[in-house]
C-alpha cells in the first residue's frame, strides 16, 4: 500500500456520496431492464390478460346470482296466479345482462355473451318462466366458463412469473458484473478508505434485496396495480355512485402508504449501511482470524462484533415498525370499505333499490363485495411487497453509489496501445499528492536508461513507494510528467502500459487456485513449460516439486500452507513469466531466509539483466550493484549516484549506511577473531 502518512485516497477523486432521489434510483434501475424488453413486454401482455381473467370472474359470479340464483328469480319459481307480473318485473330489473332481451355493456360482457351463445347455449330467461332444470343447466355453463378463465389465468400467471424472474436475474447478473468491473477501475486509494467487506456487501447483500424485489414484488405490484385500475374501472362503469362509495377509503390508503413507505425507506437505508458494517467486520476478522487467536483476542473481537451485529438488528427492528404497520392498516381500511358496500348497498336495496338515482340489485352488491375484496387484496399485497421495494431502493442507492465513484485512471480517448519499448523511463518535474496541498513528491527529476537498475533509498515515508506506484499509473501525477521511451504514460492505455511492467510487491498475494494458475496470473496464455521454466528461474521449482500435487496443488486462501519464503518465490516466478521490459521490486527479497534469498538474488540478477528496474531496496547487494541510487527524503531526491560515489560525498547516504552497517562490521570483527 502507499508509503508514508498518505491518509487519503487517489489524487483525482474525492468520494462523492450525494443522496440520490428515489425516482432517480428507480430510473437507473429501470434502465438496466432495457435490454430485456421482450421479456418485459411479454410479461406485461400476460399480466394484462390474466388480470382481465381475474376481474371477469367476480362479474361472472354476480351474473350467476342475478340470472339463476337471486331470490327474485327464485320467487318466479313458484307460480302464484296473478303474482307473475311482480316476479317477472323483479327479475328483469336485475342486472342479468346475459338475458336475450338485455344489451351487454362493455367489451367483457360482449365477449362473454358471445361465448355463452356458442354451442347453442340458451340465454337465461327473465320472463319468470325459467324452470329449475334450466337454472341448473345455466349454473353448470357459467361454472365451466369460470373454470376456463381460471385455467387461462393460471397459465398466464406462470408465464408472467417466469419472464419477470428471467429478466430480473439477468439484470442482477449485469449489475453484479458491472459493479465488479467498476471496482477494478477505482483508484487504489479507494480501497484504503473503504472496507472490503462493505464493498462486498453491496455486490452480494444489496443486490440480493433487489433480487427479492424483482422476483416476487415487481410482478405482483405490476399485476396488482393493473388489477386495481381494472376493478376501479369496472365498478365505476357499473354504478358510479356505488363505486365512489366503495372506494371512499382509497385516498386514505394512498396517504397511509406514502407516509409509511417514506419512513420505511429512511429506515432501510440505515439497515443497508449496518449490514455493510456487519459484513466489513466479518471480512476483516475472518481474514485475520490467525492474529486474533495468536493474541487471545477472540473474546474481545466477539464482544465488538456483538455491538455491530446489535446495531444491525436494531436498525432492522426499527424499519419493521413501519413495514409491519402498513399492511394491517390497509387491511383494516379494506374491511371498512366492505362494511360501506354491504351497508350502503343494503340500505339502498331496502329503500326501493335506489342509490342516488341508480339501480341496485342484490347481484350488484355481491359483485361489488367481490370487487372490494379483490380491490383490497392487491393493495395489501402491494403494501407488503412495498417493504421489499423500499429495501431494494436503499440497496440500489448503495450500488449506484459505487458506480458513481469516478475511476482513478481513465484512458485518454485518444490513448494508443503502447508498443514494444526499450525501457527508458524519465521523471520530469513530477509532483504528486494524495491530499490537496500536501505533496508527497516535489518536483522529482531523473532518467533511467534502458537496462539500468535504479535503487530507491530513503527513510520510511520519504516517497519511494509513491515513485514506483506512479510508473504503472496506479496513480497519476499532480504536476509534471512521466515518459517511457519519450511517450507520456497518460497517452497510452493503462492496460498496454502495465503489460510492459512487472511488479513484485511487498505482500505477496496468492489466490486460492493451483500453483500453476498462481504463477500464470499475469500471463494467462503461458504454456505449462513456460510456467515451469519461470519457476525454475525463481528457484521455486524445488519446493513445488515437493508439494503433494506439485504444480497442481491448490493453495489455500492467500497461499496459506506455504511459508513466507515460498510465497515470495512464487511471486518472483510470476514476474519472471510475465517477461516485462520494466521491473519494479518493492523490497521483495526481504522475507526469504538467507539461503533462499541468495538463490533469488542470483535469479533476480538474471531477471534484471537487460530490463529497466526500480528497486525499493534495503539489501546492500542490490544497492551496490545498482547503476544509480536515488536517495529520497521528504519527497525530494537529495542525492544520486553509485554506491562508492555517494559514500565519498559523506552526506545523507553515508550516514544511513554507517548507522545500518556499523553493527554488522562489529560482528565481522568478532568472526575474524
Amino acid at each position: 500500500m502507499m508509503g508514508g502518512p498518505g491518509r487519503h485516497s487517489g489524487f483525482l477523486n474525492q468520494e462523492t456520496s450525494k443522496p440520490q432521489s428515489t425516482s432517480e434510483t428507480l430510473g437507473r434501475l429501470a434502465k438496466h431492464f432495457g435490454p430485456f424488453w421482450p421479456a418485459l413486454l411479454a410479461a406485461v401482455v400476460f399480466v394484462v390478460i390474466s388480470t382481465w381473467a381475474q376481474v371477469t370472474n367476480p362479474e361472472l359470479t354476480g351474473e350467476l346470482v342475478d340470472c339463476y340464483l337471486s331470490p327474485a328469480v327464485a320467487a318466479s319459481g313458484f307460480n302464484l296466479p296473478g303474482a307473475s307480473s311482480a316476479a317477472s318485473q323483479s327479475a328483469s330489473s336485475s342486472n342479468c345482462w346475459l338475458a336475450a332481451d338485455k344489451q351487454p355493456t362493455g367489451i367483457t360482457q360482449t365477449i362473454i355473451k358471445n361465448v355463452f351463445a356458442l354451442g347453442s347455449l340458451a340465454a337465461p330467461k327473465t320472463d319468470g318462466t325459467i324452470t329449475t332444470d334450466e337454472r341448473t343447466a345455466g349454473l353448470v355453463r357459467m361454472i365451466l366458463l369460470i373454470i376456463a378463465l381460471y385455467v387461462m389465468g393460471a397459465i398466464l400467471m406462470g408465464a408472467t412469473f417466469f419472464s419477470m424472474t428471467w429478466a430480473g436475474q439477468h439484470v442482477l447478473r449485469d449489475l453484479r458484473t458491472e459493479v465488479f468491473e467498476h471496482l477494478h477501475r477505482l483508484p487504489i486509494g479507494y480501497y484504503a478508505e473503504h472496507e472490503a467487506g462493505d464493498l462486498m456487501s453491496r455486490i452480494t447483500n444489496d443486490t440480493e434485496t433487489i433480487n427479492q424485489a424483482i422476483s416476487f414484488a415487481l410482478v405482483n405490484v405490476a399485476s396488482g396495480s393493473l388489477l386495481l385500475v381494472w376493478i376501479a374501472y369496472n365498478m365505476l362503469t357499473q354504478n358510479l355512485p356505488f363505486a365512489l362509495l366503495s372506494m371512499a377509503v382509497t385516498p386514505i390508503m394512498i396517504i397511509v402508504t406514502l407516509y409509511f413507505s417514506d419512513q420505511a425507506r429512511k429506515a432501510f437505508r440505515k439497515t443497508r449501511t449496518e449490514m455493510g458494517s456487519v459484513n466489513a467486520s466479518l471480512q476483516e476478522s475472518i481474514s485475520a482470524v490467525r492474529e486474533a487467536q495468536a493474541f487471545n483476542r477472540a473474546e474481545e473481537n466477539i464482544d465488538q462484533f456483538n455491538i455491530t451485529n446489535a446495531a444491525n438488528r436494531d436498525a432492522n427492528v426499527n424499519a419493521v415498525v413501519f413495514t409491519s404497520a402498513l399492511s394491517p392498516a390497509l387491511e383494516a381500511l379494506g374491511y371498512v370499505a366492505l362494511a360501506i358496500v354491504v351497508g350502503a348497498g343494503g340500505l339502498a336495496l331496502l329503500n326501493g333499490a335506489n342509490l342516488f338515482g341508480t339501480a341496485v340489485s342484490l347481484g350488484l352488491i355481491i359483485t361489488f363485495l367481490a370487487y372490494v375484496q379483490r380491490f383490497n387484496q392487491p393493495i395489501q399485497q402491494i403494501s407488503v411487497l412495498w417493504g421489499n421495494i423500499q429495501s431494494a431502493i436503499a440497496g440500489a442507492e448503495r450500488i449506484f453509489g459505487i458506480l458513481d465513484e469516478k475511476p482513478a485512471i481513465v484512458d485518454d480517448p485518444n490513448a494508443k496501445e503502447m508498443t514494444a519499448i526499450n525501457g527508458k523511463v524519465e521523471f520530469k518535474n513530477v509532483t504528486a499528492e494524495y491530499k490537496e496541498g500536501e505533496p508527497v513528491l516535489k518536483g522529482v527529476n531523473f532518467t533511467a536508461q534502458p537496462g539500468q537498475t535504479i535503487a530507491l533509498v530513503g527513510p520510511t515515508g520519504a516517497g519511494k513507494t509513491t515513485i514506483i506506484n506512479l510508473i504503472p499509473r496506479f496513480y497519476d501525477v499532480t504536476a509534471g510528467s512521466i515518459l517511457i521511451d519519450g511517450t507520456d504514460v497518460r497517452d497510452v492505455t493503462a492496460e498496454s502500459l502495465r503489460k510492459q511492467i512487472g511488479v513484485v510487491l511487498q505482500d505477496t498475494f496468492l489466490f486460492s487456485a493451483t500453483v500453476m494458475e498462481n504463477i500464470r496470473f499475469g500471463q494467462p496464455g503461458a504454456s505449462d513449460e513456460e510456467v515451469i521454466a519461470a519457476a525454475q528461474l525463481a528457484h521455486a521449482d524445488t519446493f513445488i516439486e515437493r508439494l503433494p500435487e506439485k504444480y497442481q496443488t491448490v493453495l489455500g486462501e492467500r497461499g496459506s500452507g506455504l511459508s513466507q519464503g515460498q510465497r515470495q518465490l512464487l511471486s518472483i516466478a510470476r514476474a519472471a513469466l510475465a517477461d516485462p521490459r520494466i521491473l519494479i521490486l518493492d523490497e521483495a527479497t526481504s522475507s526469504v531466509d538467507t539461503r533462499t534469498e541468495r538463490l533469488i538474488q542470483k535469479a533476480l540478477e538474471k531477471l534484471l539483466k537487460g530490463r529497466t528496474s526500480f528497486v525499493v531496496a534495503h539489501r546492500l547487494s542490490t544497492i551496490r550493484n545498482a547503476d544509480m541510487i536515488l536517495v529520497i527524503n521528504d519527497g525530494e531526491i537529495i542525492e544520486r549516484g553509485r554506491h562508492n560515489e555517494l559514500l565519498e560525498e559523506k552526506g545523507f547516504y553515508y550516514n544511513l549506511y554507517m548507522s545500518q552497517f556499523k553493527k554488522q562490521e562489529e560482528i565481522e570483527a568478532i568472526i575474524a577473531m
Partner: protein
Amino acid sequence: MTQQRNVIGRAAGYLFHYRWQAVLPYIFLLIATLSQLAVPRLVRSIIDAVTKGVIATTVLDALNKIPAAFMSVALPKILTFLNYPATMTSDQLVAQLNADKVSAPDDLVRAGLFIVGFAALRGLFAFLQAFWAEKNSQSVAYDLRNDLYAKIQRLSFSYHDQNQTGQLMIRATDDVEKVRLFLGQGLLQLIGALVLLTATLIILFTTNAQLALATIWIIPVALILFMLFGTISQPLFNRVQQRLSALNTILQENLAGIKVVKAFTREKSEEVKFNVAADNLMDQQIVIARLFTFLMPLVFLIANLGQATTLYVGGKEIILGTLTLGEWQEFSMYLIFIFFPVAQLGFIITQFGQAAASATRIFEILDAKSDVTDKAGAIELPQVEGNINFEDVSFRYVGGGAPVLDKVSFEAKPGQTIALLGATGSGKTSIINLLPRFYDPTDGRITIDGHDLRDVKLESLRAQIGIVLQETTLFSGSIRDNIAFGKPEATDDEIFAAAKAAAAHDFITSFPEGYETPVGERGTTLSGGQKQRVAIARALLLNPRILILDDSTSSVDLGTEAVIQSALDKLMKGRTSFVIAQRISTVMNADQIIVLDKGKVAAIGKHAELLEENEIYAEIYSSQLLDDKQHA
C-alpha cells in the same frame, strides 16, 4: 424432509431464547385471525337482513294483489317458501313481513358497525403480530450471527486453511437472512395458515357439512404437491447458496488483492472469472424459477377449482331452495380463508426449502469440530518459567501429503534464545505454529514447564506467548487499540512504554492525531516498517515469558532497520525466544541453533560447535551467512 425438519427445528430453538416474547406473535396472530373470521358472518347477516327485507317487500306487494279467494290456496305455498310455520294466518304473516321489513335496516347498520369494530381489532393485532414476529426473527438472526462469529473466531488454523473468507461470510450473512425470513414470516405464516384452516374448516362443517365436503378435497391434493416441490427444491436452493459463496470468494480475493490484480493487468481475466460465477448463480436461480413457474399457478388453480366446486354445489342447493343466498355468500367468503392459507403454504414451502438449505450450511460451521480445543479438565497454565520440550514431534497439514515435521526433539531452557535455521519449507514455520497450539502435532508431544500443551487451557497458554510475525496485520481502529490488541485493558503509560521500547513512539506522535490515528482497513496506511514496530509494541505490551518472532526486518529502510533490530534484541532479553533467524547477529548470540532440513533436525548446538561439527551448518554458514557478511 426429516433432515430438513431437524435443522429448521434446531434453528427455531433459537426463538426460545426469548421465552414469552417468542410466544407473543402467536397470541396476537390468534386474536387477529379470530377477528378476521367474524367478518364473513357479519356480511352474511347483512345480506340475509337485506334479502329478508326485499322478500318481505316483494311478498307484501304480491299479497296485496292476490284476491282474497285464492289466499287459502296461496298461503301454505308462501309459508313453505319463506320457511315460516304452516300454522301462520295471513294476518300473522303480514305482521311478520312488516316486522322483517322494519328491522332489516337496524340489523344492517348494527352488523356494519361490528365489521368496522372487528376491522380495527384485526388491524391492531395484525400489526402487533407482524412487529413481534420480525423483532423475534431479527433477534434470532443476531444470535445466529454471534454464534457463527464466535465459532469462526475459535476454529483452528487448519479449518481456516481449508475454508475461504468469502464463503464463510455468505453463511454468516445471506444464509442467516434466509433462515431468519422463514423463522420470522414463514413459521408464523405456517402456524397462522394452519390455525385459519382448522378454524375455517370447523366453521364450514358446522354451517354446511355437505358444502364443506365438496371443497376440502383440494387440501390433501395441495399438501401432497407442496411436499413434492419442497423435496425437489431444497437441493436446488443449496446449490444457489454454494454458487453465491463461490461468487463472494472471487469478490473477496479480488478486493483483498486488488493491487496485484491491477499490477498484472488481470482485470479482464478476473472479470471473466467473476462473470462465469455470476452466470452460474443466475442459471441456478432460473432453474428454481422454472420450478416455481409450475408451482405457483398450480397453487392458485387448485384454490380456484375448489371455489368453482363450491359455486356448483352451492348454486344447486340454492336452486333447490335448501340454501339461502346469504349463507352461500358467507360460505364462499370463508372459502377464501381456506384457499388463502393453502396458497400460503405453497409459498412457505419455498421459504422452508430455502431456509433448510441455509440452516444446514450454518450448522455445518457451528458443528465443525475444531481440532484444537480445550480438553475436558484442562487446567489453567500457571505462570511459566519457559522450559519448552519438543518430544518426537511430527506434524503434517490436513490433506497435505508428506510430513512437514518428522520426529523433532529438543529442549529450550528458560530465557534461552533458539534460532531456527533452514531452507524455505524446512519446517521452521511449523515449529512456530505448534507452540501456541495453532495446530496440534500429529505425533509426539510438546511440553511447557512439564505441562503437555494439550492439557492446559488454550487461552492461558497463548496469553504467555508473544508473537511478532513478518506479515503484520493491523485492524481497523486507532494505533492505540492495535498496540493494546492482546491486552485491551492496558493503561496509556504501559502502551507508551511499549511503543517507546519498540521505537514506534516517535513516528506515532508525529501524526496529528497521535495514538488515536485510525489505522487498518479504514484508516491511515502505515508503511511496512511502521507496521512492524506497532507489532513489536503489541508483543512487548504483553510482557510474555515466551516469544516467537521472525527477526527479518522487512520493508524498512536502512536506518529504520537498525532501530527495529535493537528493539528486537531488547524484546528477546530474558525470555525464551524462538526466532526464525535471518541475521548473523541472532545466530551468533543464540543459545541454541536448530538446523532444520526437510522437517528433520539436522543439528543442534551453538555457533562455534556447529561450525566445527556439523557439515550442513558449516555449509549454510559459509554459503549464506558468511556471504551476507562479506557483502556487508
